């Protein structure tokens, strides 16, 4: 028995190490983080230095108020006290993400009581292509959110046994809303499970009902405390984070089934959905209903475009990885009853091969292409030039994805970045922003540059990609724009002021 336990832990440790090593290898293969990472890095450094988050940001949008839950940043800041930020940003989130393997193992084992099914399920969770690629080098708070949410679900499964899980769940309830606003999905999932269980007359303990209502109220309350001003400022559009209307289409995209299968991995997708069908309509188990409730909540939120597609697919991927364990168990039990039972190893090899082909390899290939979404040496040099050669209060106009880099590396004010909450007249600002980049009229450009008090225009590969052109008015060397930097990235100084006759 002892040997069995040790082997189980050994395999799990090995799996955890493989996932972590793969993530770290890919993350360290590029010199810089993905563009999305720099907001979080800046907050982490600020907390490490000042002990509190930078809620009144003088640089973003040339000065604005930020609202965000700060737990992830605080944890990273703690590590930043004795580790350099580049190491913290690469190592800590990847450790968090790799812990998902352990959590999913615990859940799968609890549901199936099969070590093999649990190991296979956790391996799948470790290599969900979209989760792997989007979080390996982006210092994403989802790396903390998912292991915590799934551990909370594990606690929910175990509440009728050991009391410690009840207390774990109570404690986690307070932490979940402090990580990401999308934590609201946790509440939605629990409520849908409650409704499903009620409809199907599933036996629910009093303790379970209490432990579903409590998190629902606590999470809502904490989120209201954090986002009070955003609710008042944006009303219902708060749900879409005040994203400019023109960007909504690309931020909250429609789902394409085939693409989703590829991003989640075909094994969990196909077999997970089979399990949903089988257990919902035939065998009614509490565990399957919990995860089905969450899958339904995620699916509905995606359908109603309430959450980002990437986040929704990550959540679905992990849920289906859990449900796969049930399929694994049922399949091999069934196989034992057939004449081909002695060839079960052949099926195992087939499954492993399928897993490598549809989960591991896509994870690597997606991550490699995602890593291209990080700044190159030329961009960093240009940003350092801005930091060293321009006045401290200069406003830099840059592409949407360069916004956080302007704040973090150049330490200068930007006009636009991807945090839209609490920005007034966001649609007008976005239209102006697009006009500045795409106009062919110098007067229009100068008028808008004056409006936002822009001193420099930073044109990188992001600007060329976002606007699909190299033909910016600034590169035509008009008398209002001096080329201040030219080395792969172009920086133009805006020198004119438009004076209108009275």
């Amino acid at each position, binding site marked *: 028995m002892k040997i069995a336990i040790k082997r189980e832990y050994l395999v799990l440790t090995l799996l955890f190490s493989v996932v972590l090593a793969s993530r770290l290898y890919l993350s360290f293969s590029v010199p810089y983080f993905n563009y999305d990472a720099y907001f979080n890095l800046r907050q982490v450094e600020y907390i490490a230095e000042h002990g509190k988050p930078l809620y009144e940001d003088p640089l973003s949008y040339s000065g604005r108020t930020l609202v965000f839950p700060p737990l992830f940043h605080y944890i990273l800041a703690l590590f930043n006290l004795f580790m350099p930020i580049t190491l913290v940003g690469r190592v800590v989130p990847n450790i968090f993400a790799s812990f998902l393997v352990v959590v999913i193992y615990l859940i799968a084992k609890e549901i199936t009581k099969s070590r093999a099914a649990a190991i296979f399920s956790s391996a799948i969770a470790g290599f969900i292509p979209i989760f792997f690629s989007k979080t390996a080098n982006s210092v994403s708070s989802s790396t903390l959110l998912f292991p915590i949410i799934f551990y909370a679900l594990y606690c929910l499964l175990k509440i009728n046994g050991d009391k410690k899980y009840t207390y774990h769940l109570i404690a986690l309830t307070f932490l979940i809303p402090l990580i990401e606003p999308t934590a609201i999905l946790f509440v939605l999932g629990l409520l849908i499970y409650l409704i499903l269980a009620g409809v199907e007359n599933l036996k629910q303990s009093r303790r379970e009902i*209490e432990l579903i209502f409590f998190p629902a*109220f606590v999470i809502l*309350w904490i989120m209201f405390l954090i986002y009070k001003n955003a609710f*008042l400022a944006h009303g219902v559009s708060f749900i879409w984070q005040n994203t400019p209307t023109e960007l909504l289409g690309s931020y909250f995209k429609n789902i394409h089934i085939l693409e989703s299968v590829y991003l989640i991995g075909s094994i969990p997708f196909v077999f997970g959905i089979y399990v949903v069908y089988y257990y919902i309509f035939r065998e009614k188990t509490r565990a399957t209903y919990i995860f089905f409730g969450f899958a339904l909540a995620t699916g509905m939120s995606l359908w109603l475009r309430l959450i980002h597609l990437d986040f929704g697919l990550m959540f679905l991927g992990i849920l289906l990885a859990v449900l796969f364990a049930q399929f694994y168990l049922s399949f091999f039990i069934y196989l034992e009853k057939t004449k081909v039972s002695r060839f079960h190893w052949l099926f195992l090899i087939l499954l492993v091969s399928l897993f490598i082909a549809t989960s591991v390899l896509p994870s690597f290939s997606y991550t490699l292409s995602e890593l291209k979404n990080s700044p190159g040496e030329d961009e960093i040099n240009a940003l350092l030039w801005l930091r060293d050669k321009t006045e401290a209060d200069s406003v830099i106009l840059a592409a949407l994805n360069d916004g956080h880099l302007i704040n973090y590396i150049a330490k200068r004010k930007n006009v636009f970045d991807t945090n839209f909450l609490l920005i*007034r*007249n966001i649609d*007008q600002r976005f239209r102006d922003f697009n006009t500045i980049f795409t106009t062919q009229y110098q007067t229009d450009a100068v008028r808008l540059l004056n*409006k936002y008090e822009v001193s420099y225009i930073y044109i990188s590969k992001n600007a060329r990609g976002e606007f699909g052109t190299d033909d910016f008015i600034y590169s035509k060397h008009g008398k209002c724009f001096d080329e201040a930097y030219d080395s792969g990235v172009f920086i133009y100084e805006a020198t004119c002021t438009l004076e209108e006759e009275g």
Partner: protein
Amino acid sequence: MKDFIKYTKYATERNSFLVLIAVTALLLLLPHFSGPLSSSPALIGREPYYHYRIAKSIMEEGGISYDYISYGGKPHLFNPYHYVLAGFFYFFTDRIAVWLLPFMLGILSVILFYKLLQMFKLPSAHRFFFLLIFVASPSFIHTFVLLNSASVAFLFSLLGFYFLLGKRKISFAASVMAFAPIVFFGLAYTLVTFLFLLVYSLIKENTPKEFFLNPKKKAATTALILFLISLLYYSPIYLEYGFPEKITFVEGNFFVSLLSDLGGNGFALFAVLLALSGLILTWGNKYVFWPVYLGALFLAILFFYTDSVSIYVNAAQSFFAAHALIILTKRKWEIPLLKNLTIFILLLGLSFSTVSYLDRMSDMAPEKNTAEGLKWLGKNSKPGIVLSHYSRGFWIEAMANRTAFMDESFIYAPDPNTRFEDSEKIFQGRNLDKTKYLLDKYSIDYIWIDEEMKNGLVWTKEQQGLLFLFRNNETFNNIYNTGGVEIWQVKR
């Protein structure tokens, strides 16, 4: 329930009542005597300025049938609230009257509601939490802190039901007398009262006796009388003026109206969630609660169309929310810690919305610069028509005593939709000739602009539309420019 009411030895019937009155008084007085409003010379909100002006006119002229200021002249529909307010202005100073009247109406409503719930034999704990949630809701504060005609209409509804349940013969007459004035407050209040009476009269015999004491026949008769009075009152109005024009430019958002946390004057999110839970929890006794469901359904439908009935919806949602809260408290929890934590979080959530709303009320008053600009306009301009955003209309009329091109009193206003479209053409147009034509068409003499209008309410860009045309000093003359407020005179 007894266990609960004996939560502490102090939780007696009398003390519960006193606590309710104290909480009500505190919530109703706090916005007037703390924070920015205490030092502000202005009333809170926009509609109160309308009531203030009409009540003052009544005091001076003894009555009003035609409003010469609003839209340059439109029919004025009789509203008893203005006479009550005028009465207060007669006995008290303006500053005292504007908080004393809503305060007294609020306290009276709570006392009457308490008595009414006692007559319905609602358990004391349920009654206490019902009224606590009711008075702590932004909807109640909105109705009984600001000058709001719903406050008197609601009090009359309570009074009507109070007398309806009375056992003396005279009480029926008193009930009719109390219900009748509701007709003059508006069709929405009349409809709510009529439907409540109808639902009450439809209750079956087999319902618990103690819940519905008796007089369904009286209720039906009262509903009929109310219907007849409405017919007598509204028919001549509709015959003379027709149906009011449907306003197409005011876009209401149901969710914003519903949840105060989204910026409206409705209800706390936690109260709504609790009410929904309460509704589900009562479903087991659906045969007892069906009249309440029916009433709530009517209210929900009506609230979808007009948020003026929010105080009535508040009563319904407080009933279900209190029911859920009591079940949560009474229920034996397997994890006692969780029970205490959940109730604590719920109470925090409920009070959070109340505090947040009280804090937000200070933003509803016109800013100091706005008030000063309007007073300046009143003193330094000739009588004439002032163009601004329609939301500034009541302020212009009450504080500057000038005719606003548009205000929010849309009923029987002359062509409000066309006026709005034309005002947009003036605000957004860059063609001086077209703008001058429209200004002449409506004889507009002054244009009044504030910071909020320049920051998104009307314009989003500098030099947009009319802001660009102001440079033409042959047509426009800037006569006031202080603290973000600009007043432009139209030269002719």
